[in-house]
């Protein structure tokens, strides 16, 4: 398989290079365009000068805010240099869609697979590159927020909202060297709005034909030494039953309510010209009615999940080439499942968890091209079950690690990253992970990328201490990943590329098939994913993108496919201005058939579906705009999780006011 793919990569590389050579004139155009940007920059500098001719000196630094990502190397890096597969969901792209819930936004990318128990508030899993749902590290501004109360340490994406976000960066390939535990298959980092957000107030309100409504308010204020952004959103739906209507006659079904609150706040303040402090906090409350899908439609049970997170950073940066960062965070998560009156029903549980984290790292530029990053972190987690059927009392576990990474970046030529991390967990012993990544940029606008890395995930407190199923002898789960890719720009408007992602588990925690006790099972999962993508830019803001992913994810021992991942997935996006004040945004997602369980039972095969969403927006003035959007235009009846229905066609109308 790998050999075949290598040959395929080589062929694509040759073909794309031939195409690029034929478009040399376009490339020249690109360069001259860059020059004009520099000219504009010069003009901007001139504009800063006063009319009199005076002596002047400028302090210049290479920063391109629009093309900078931070997740791939834990430092600001030009996206062109990044050597690992990365998907960026910009603020603009999220605003264009009109949707801010993370599952809906991320599902638009063909290399990410989302499975949700019904509607917008339902338990939501994401399989990054096809890997298990607990194999990705979810972060807000570099702080890990994985749910401590989930038995396997996954994350419920219904708790994550992208309103007030600058961009979301999804990096594929194990990232434990930079980000520690959980980054087995990659990282999803939510970069929140900062000083770049415009001053003022933004209010968005929308209402649907199913009486679903969503209200969002953002307030931003910035001064010469600091800024503050506050974002609040509320969502409510009581439109349909999440239980699959095909399993019931109409009388047994009731509409289920989903109510979600989100708050995101971020502030930054310059203590001196070399010391900067930043603080971010996030709160999410998800109050939904519990359905057990194909099995029962409970009428009086609900699931309330809450997550509160606060993080702070102090950055000492006397020059662009030296930075000392210290950051601390505190996260509290709770999950309560009970009846409306507080009594226990068919399903119950009360789970509480907290996590404390402190990290100090330092980046240092050595010479013109080399940057090193070293650091150490410490974290402590505790977890308890609050119900009367508790199987264990409050338990905690701590871990610490030290890491280092060397980044060699010669702009527009090559980027090389080599790093390692030593990790020690109180119970599961020590682990060493490494990461090596290389990208080569050719004058023909071709970029070759490749990386190899290892990842680890510490066992959860539940896996360690549960009195019935826990096992204190568990070790960390470990993975090996490899990525490769080619990107080719053709002229100024076309971008083509492909990427390959390979992942295998070396050590895995599984539940024993007869005793259900957690145990180490060696490596039993192998994943190959190939993605092709193309993007046509009408101009800087308008675009058409198409992305296709092929996935082969299977259990080695049984050769069965991993559940809920389609073999083929397509994601396309179009954003186009129709007139000066009207715009159209359309997404199309195709998911092929997939199984819902490990045994690949035919009766639980989930059907393929085509999902089309669109949004038309009219800007009445700079202050007021209105929009109409349609979700599931084709009224597809499909399921992402067996037994859980999803809403049919829903029409929304919304207004956006800025002042």
């Amino acid at each position, binding site marked *: 398989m790998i050999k075949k793919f290598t040959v395929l990569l080589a062929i694509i590389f040759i073909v794309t290079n031939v195409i690029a050579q034929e478009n040399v004139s376009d490339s020249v155009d690109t360069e001259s365009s860059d020059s004009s940007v520099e000219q504009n920059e010069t003009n901007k500098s001139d504009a800063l000068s006063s009319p009199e001719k005076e002596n002047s000196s400028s302090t210049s630094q290479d920063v391109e*805010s629009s093309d900078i990502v931070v997740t791939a190397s834990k430092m600001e890096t030009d996206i062109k240099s990044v050597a690992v597969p990365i998907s960026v969901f910009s603020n603009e792209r999220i605003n264009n869609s009109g949707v801010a819930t993370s599952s809906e936004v991320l599902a638009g990318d063909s290399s990410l697979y989302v499975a949700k128990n019904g509607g917008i508030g339902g338990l939501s899993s994401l399989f990054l590159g096809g890997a298990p749902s607990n194999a990705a590290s979810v972060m807000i501004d570099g702080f890990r927020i994985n749910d401590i109360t989930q038995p396997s340490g996954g994350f419920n994406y219904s708790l994550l909202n992208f309103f007030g976000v600058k961009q979301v960066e999804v990096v594929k390939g194990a990232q434990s060297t930079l980000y520690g535990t959980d980054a087995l298959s990659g990282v999803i980092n939510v970069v929140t709005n900062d000083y770049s957000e415009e001053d003022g107030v933004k209010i968005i309100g929308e209402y649907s034909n199913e009486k679903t409504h969503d209200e969002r308010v953002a307030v931003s204020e910035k001064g010469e030494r600091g800024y503050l952004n506050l974002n609040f959103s509320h969502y409510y739906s009581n439109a349909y039953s999440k239980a699959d209507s095909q399993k019931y006659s109409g009388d047994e079904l009731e509409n289920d309510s989903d109510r979600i609150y989100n708050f995101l706040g971020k502030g930054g303040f310059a203590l001196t010209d070399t010391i900067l402090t930043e603080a971010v906090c996030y709160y999410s409350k998800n109050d939904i009615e519990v359905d057990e899908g194909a099995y029962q439609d409970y009428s009086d049970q609900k699931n309330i999940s809450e997550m509160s997170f606060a993080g702070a950073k102090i950055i000492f940066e006397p020059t662009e080439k030296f930075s000392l960062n210290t950051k601390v965070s505190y996260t509290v998560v709770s999950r309560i499942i009970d009846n409306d009156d507080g009594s226990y029903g068919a399903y119950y549980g009360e789970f509480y968890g907290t996590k404390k984290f402190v990290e100090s790292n330092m980046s240092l530029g050595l010479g013109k091209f080399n940057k090193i990053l070293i650091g150490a972190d410490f974290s402590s987690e505790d977890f308890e079950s609050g119900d009367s059927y508790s199987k264990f009392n409050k338990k905690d576990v701590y871990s610490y690690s030290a890491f280092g990474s060397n980044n060699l970046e010669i702009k527009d030529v090559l980027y090389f990253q080599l790093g390692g991390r030593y990790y020690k967990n109180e119970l599961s012993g020590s682990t060493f992970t490494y990461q090596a990544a290389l990208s080569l940029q050719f004058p023909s606008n071709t970029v070759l990328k490749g990386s190899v890395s290892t990842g680890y995930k510490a066992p959860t407190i539940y896996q360690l201490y549960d009195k019935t199923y826990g096992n204190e002898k568990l070790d960390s789960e470990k993975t090996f990943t490899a990525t490769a890719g080619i990107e080719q720009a053709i002229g100024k408007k076309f971008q083509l590329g492909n990427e390959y992602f390979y992942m295998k588990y070396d050590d895995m925690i599984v539940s024993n098939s007869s005793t259900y006790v957690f145990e180490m099972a060696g490596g039993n999962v192998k994943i190959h994913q190939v993605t092709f993508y193309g993007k046509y830019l009408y101009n800087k803001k308008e675009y058409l993108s198409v992305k296709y992913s092929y996935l082969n994810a299977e259990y080695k021992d049984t050769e069965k496919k991993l559940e809920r991942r389609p073999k083929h997935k397509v994601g396309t996006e179009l954003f186009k201005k129709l007139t000066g004040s009207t715009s159209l945004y359309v997404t199309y997602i195709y998911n092929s058939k997939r199984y819902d369980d490990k045994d690949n039972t035919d009766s639980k095969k989930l059907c393929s579906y085509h999902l089309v969403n669109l949004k038309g927006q009219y800007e009445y003035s700079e202050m007021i705009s209105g929009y109409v959007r349609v979700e599931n235009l084709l009224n597809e009846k499909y399921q992402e999780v067996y037994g859980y229905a999803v809403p049919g066609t829903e029409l929304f109308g919304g207004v956006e006011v800025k002042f």
Partner: protein
Amino acid sequence: MQFKLIFTISFLLSVLTHLIVLGSIVLFSNWEDKDILTQNMIFRMTVASEKIAKPKIYDEDKLMSSSKSNGSNSNQEPNNSIDSTAVKKYISEFAKNYPPAYPVFCRRNSIEGYVLLKITFVVGSSNPIIVAEKYSGSKLFINAALKAAEQWDYSFAGNLSRNISISQKIIFSLN
């Protein structure tokens, strides 16, 4: 208790690591690397500690000959004095070679701007009066520009025969 112990050890280890690296920077300061690190950080660290002399880009002979070559000015000023054009030129050299550090808040948030410094030399004093006359972007630029200007070498001011006041613009821009 265990948490506090581990936290303390981690913190001390972290501080120790940082001290080792900072020490390495000072040791490696002999590198002939004209990057910002050596230009700014080492320069400012060493000047602050006053253990190493300020870098000498001021050349008295060149300054004098430069003054003499300025025909019109030489008529107005005594032969052995330094004229304002020459002073401007040397201040400009300092501004180019030892620019202020870009304030971290501004760099990370892509804030650009400028500061117009007025540097006044008074006869008999080698310490000029430096004030910021105008600025744009952020007040943080003022502090950065003043800090940098205070580190420049003004030893030539002792040779001045009359008061001189010059303007020096410092532009903070991100390319």
